[in-house]
């Protein structure tokens, strides 16, 4: 433990700074009982090496415990496991807490904690752990609880039930590249003597070499290049010429001409160009396919919902899978659990936090018999509800499955596909023109030569390479600046945006740094009284007040009463203390107070003392950001909250249209209204409440403080700390498109040189073989140099 650098006030497990160091064990301080118990588990099992690889490798364990009874239901567990036979079960979990080498070490030593675990393997980038265990010795639920006990809670959500296979596509592409590369290498080797000129003595090898070349060209054309043909045919069926159409044509022409020449023994053919072309094109595809394994852009409500919920049948509690939940079922929701379906409140005090659905930060109280919409999180005591609509038809899921989204993707035609059309037509006109000219000169052999040669050199391969290389360079620059795009197409979208819509809560306000302010004065004694009262309440505002006051000692509270949605009161040191909305207050002072959310009034012994107010703090660098953006872009602000912040917002958002009290559906409609005005809309949002609008917009960006935590389905994820760099990102995207256009000019000049030879029917295989890689290398070098030049200019590094 030579490199131990933690101070005494930091938690030994998670590193959280806590000056009071409330928990001491083994001479080490811990921030909470959770961290301490993880340490106890590890130290009693000789697993303290966990702490030697990294200082404070754990995550804070301060959150409340979850219930895993549902994992005992065989039907639910069966959907989660990857493989099971009579002895062993294999299951893989997504564990968001995985972040360092200690995590890998500990999770791969799970077998030391329980003999039932046979083997565990981590995929670090995907934050996935795959565990093989003997289900006779450790049950599925016990395994999950074991992981929770060492601080690695797996994220089990409804989306896991349908596990997607995404790996196979990429593997297939790499196989195709391998075949193309293998054939290219061999063809180059066998073509080399031809380039240098064969002496008469060596002529005997020529036939063998050309036939071998043809043999190598066959797998390249029919296996490696298959997807170009498939995509071209699919495009033509939809009456569209995409970029793959001219590429497929060129590959076909190259192969046919080479085959004719080699079989008729009239020349060496163009197999070297063919194999090199396919190899480079596939490399371009591969660069384009770059993905972030640790980020998910496809999350929907299912990854937010739990897998199962507790249902009361008679007097018995039973865990039931969400999709089997039927109308009339009576569900039991504990503190911090999500209400999975629209339901009627039957029993208990419901204080539901709808911040994910509506964006409203304050929990809503519901009375018995009221409908509670799905997606809310119960805060406080356990409640019972009766389901009135199945999960698939609830308000939230309907918003998500809005039909408007289904057709959206096809409409996007990128720059390349547009160019490909003109490119293809120009290519054909020149080729047919050249052929016609030589035909009229009665030189039919030359006509055929010229026709094929034009098609070969006019190859738009540079077009299909410059785009992925440029855009992926832009992507990696964004990546370094904590802006993660779903794929390279999003860069082009970003360059085209002219309207920006912001959501308020969580997007431009930072959720962690909620501060409190008290208007009025309190003596030290009174502070302790308020804190003592707040300590008895589970309401989030009470907790916030308690955290803010943090007095260290407490008085006894008599006759504590909590009226849901109104406030709390109690008798402390024989004085009546009341906290809550104006309706709660006994004194005359209530006459000129109106009910404002997020405000708590305080009255001690019938004297009005003032009020607490929640302050939302803005993300840093906002003011300058909107000032500069509003010059170039049409700005809009949508908020689920009320207008109370309107004036302050107007200072930060000059020239911005603001709309308050927007429901998720309103936001979605607002975006589509802008789109009908032919605007390209970029939407910034955070929670589920923006999910519909994010999908509807041309470019949906989820702003989040922890990129691994939940974010709704979107095109890009932006780390909240980088929000102020937004204008730079927009500039960089535009420069990226500029780079592609410039590289197009360069490649066009190469093509013109090639066409000059080709129309005369003079294109030798050597010219083609030199010209093609030369232009490719130029383009790849140019795009990466240009992108980094622009990045420096935009001060993104």
């Amino acid at each position: 433990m030579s490199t131990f650098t933690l101070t005494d006030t930091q938690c030994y497990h998670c590193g959280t700074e806590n000056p009071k160091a409330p928990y001491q064990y083994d001479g080490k301080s811990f921030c909470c009982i959770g961290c301490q118990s993880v340490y106890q588990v590890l130290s009693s099992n000789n697993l303290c090496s966990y702490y030697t690889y990294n200082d404070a490798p754990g995550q804070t364990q301060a959150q409340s415990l979850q219930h895993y009874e549902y994992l005992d239901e065989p039907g639910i567990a069966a959907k989660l496991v990857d493989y099971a036979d009579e002895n062993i079960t294999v299951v893989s979990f997504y564990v968001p807490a995985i972040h360092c080498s200690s995590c890998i070490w500990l999770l791969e030593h799970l077998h030391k904690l329980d003999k039932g675990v046979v083997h565990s393997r981590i995929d670090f980038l995907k934050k996935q752990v795959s565990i093989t265990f003997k289900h006779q010795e450790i049950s599925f639920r016990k395994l999950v609880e074991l992981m929770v006990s060492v601080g690695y809670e797996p994220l089990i959500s409804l989306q896991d039930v349908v596990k997607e296979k995404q790996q196979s596509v990429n593997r297939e592409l790499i196989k195709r590249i391998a075949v193309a590369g293998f054939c290219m290498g061999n063809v180059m080797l066998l073509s080399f003597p031809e380039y240098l000129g064969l002496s008469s003595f060596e002529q005997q090898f020529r036939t063998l070499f050309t036939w071998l070349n043809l043999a190598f060209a066959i797998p390249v054309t029919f296996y490696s290049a298959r997807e170009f043909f498939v995509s071209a045919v699919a495009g033509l069926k939809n009456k569209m010429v995409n970029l793959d159409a001219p590429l497929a044509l060129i590959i076909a022409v190259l192969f046919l001409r080479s085959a004719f020449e080699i079989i008729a023994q009239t020349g060496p053919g163009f197999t070297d160009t063919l194999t090199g072309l396919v190899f480079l094109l596939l490399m371009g595809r591969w660069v384009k396919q770059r993905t972030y394994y640790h980020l998910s852009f496809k999350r929907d409500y299912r990854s937010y919902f739990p897998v199962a919920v507790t249902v009361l049948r008679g007097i018995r509690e039973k865990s039931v899978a969400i999709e089997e939940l039927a109308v009339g079922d009576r569900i039991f929701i504990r503190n911090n659990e999500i209400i999975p379906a629209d339901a009627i409140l039957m029993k208990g005090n419901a204080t539901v936090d709808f911040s994910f659905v509506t964006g409203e930060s304050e929990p809503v109280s519901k009375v018995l018999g009221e409908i509670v919409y799905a997606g809310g999180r119960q805060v406080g005591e356990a409640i019972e509800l009766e389901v009135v609509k199945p999960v698939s038809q609830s308000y939230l899921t309907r918003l998500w499955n809005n039909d408007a989204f289904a057709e959206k993707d096809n409409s996007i035609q990128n720059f390349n596909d547009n160019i490909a059309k003109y490119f293809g037509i120009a290519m054909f006109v020149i080729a047919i023109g050249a052929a016609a000219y030589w035909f009229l000169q009665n030189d039919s052999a030359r006509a055929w030569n010229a026709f094929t040669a034009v098609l070969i050199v006019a190859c738009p391969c540079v077009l299909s390479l410059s785009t992925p290389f440029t855009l992926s360079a832009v992507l990696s620059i964004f990546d370094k600046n904590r802006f993660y795009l779903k794929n390279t197409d999003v860069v082009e979208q970003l360059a085209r945006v002219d309207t920006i819509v912001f959501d308020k809560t969580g997007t431009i306000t930072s959720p962690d740094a909620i501060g409190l302010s008290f208007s009025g004065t309190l003596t030290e004694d009174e502070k302790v009284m308020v804190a003592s009262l707040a300590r008895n309440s589970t309401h989030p505002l009470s907790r916030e007040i308690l955290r803010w006051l943090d007095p260290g000692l407490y008085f006894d509270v008599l006759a504590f009463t909590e009226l849901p949605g109104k406030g709390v009161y109690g008798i402390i040191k024989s004085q009546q203390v009341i906290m809550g909305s104006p309706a709660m207050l006994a004194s005359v002072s209530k006459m000129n107070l109106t009910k404002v959310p997020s405000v708590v009034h305080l009255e001690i012994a019938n004297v009005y003392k003032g009020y607490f107010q929640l302050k939302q703090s803005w993300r840093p660098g906002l003011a300058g950001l909107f000032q500069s953006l509003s010059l170039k872009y049409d700005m809009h602000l949508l908020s689920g909250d009320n207008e109370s912040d309107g004036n302050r917002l107007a200072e930060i958002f000059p020239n911005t249209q603001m709309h308050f009290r927007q429901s998720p559906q309103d936001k979605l409609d607002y975006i589509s209204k802008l789109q009908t005005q032919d605007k390209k809309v970029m939407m910034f949002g955070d929670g589920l409440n923006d999910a519909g609008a994010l999908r509807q917009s041309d470019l949906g960006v989820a702003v989040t403080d922890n990129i691994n935590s939940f974010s709704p389905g979107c095109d890009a994820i932006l780390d909240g700390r980088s929000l102020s760099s937004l204008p730079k990102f927009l500039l960089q995207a535009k420069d990226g498109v500029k780079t592609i256009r410039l590289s197009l000019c360069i490649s066009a000049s190469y093509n013109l040189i090639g066409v000059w030879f080709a129309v005369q029917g003079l294109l030798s295989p050597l010219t083609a073989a030199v010209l093609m890689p030369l232009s490719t290398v130029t383009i790849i070098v140019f795009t990466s140099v240009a992108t980094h030049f622009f990045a420096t200019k935009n001060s993104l590094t």
Partner: protein
Amino acid sequence: MNIIYMLIGCSILLALTFLMAFFWAMKNGQNDDMQTPAIRILFEDDKPTEEP
């Protein structure tokens, strides 16, 4: 010079072997996770525990 026929045959066979080896590695999942093994190799071997 006839030896060239044999040499070319050998070289192609050898190259094919490597291609097959690559395919096998691919299918075996050796290229799926490029990050974790690099960290895993730095761990100390487990010390033998004192318990019997």
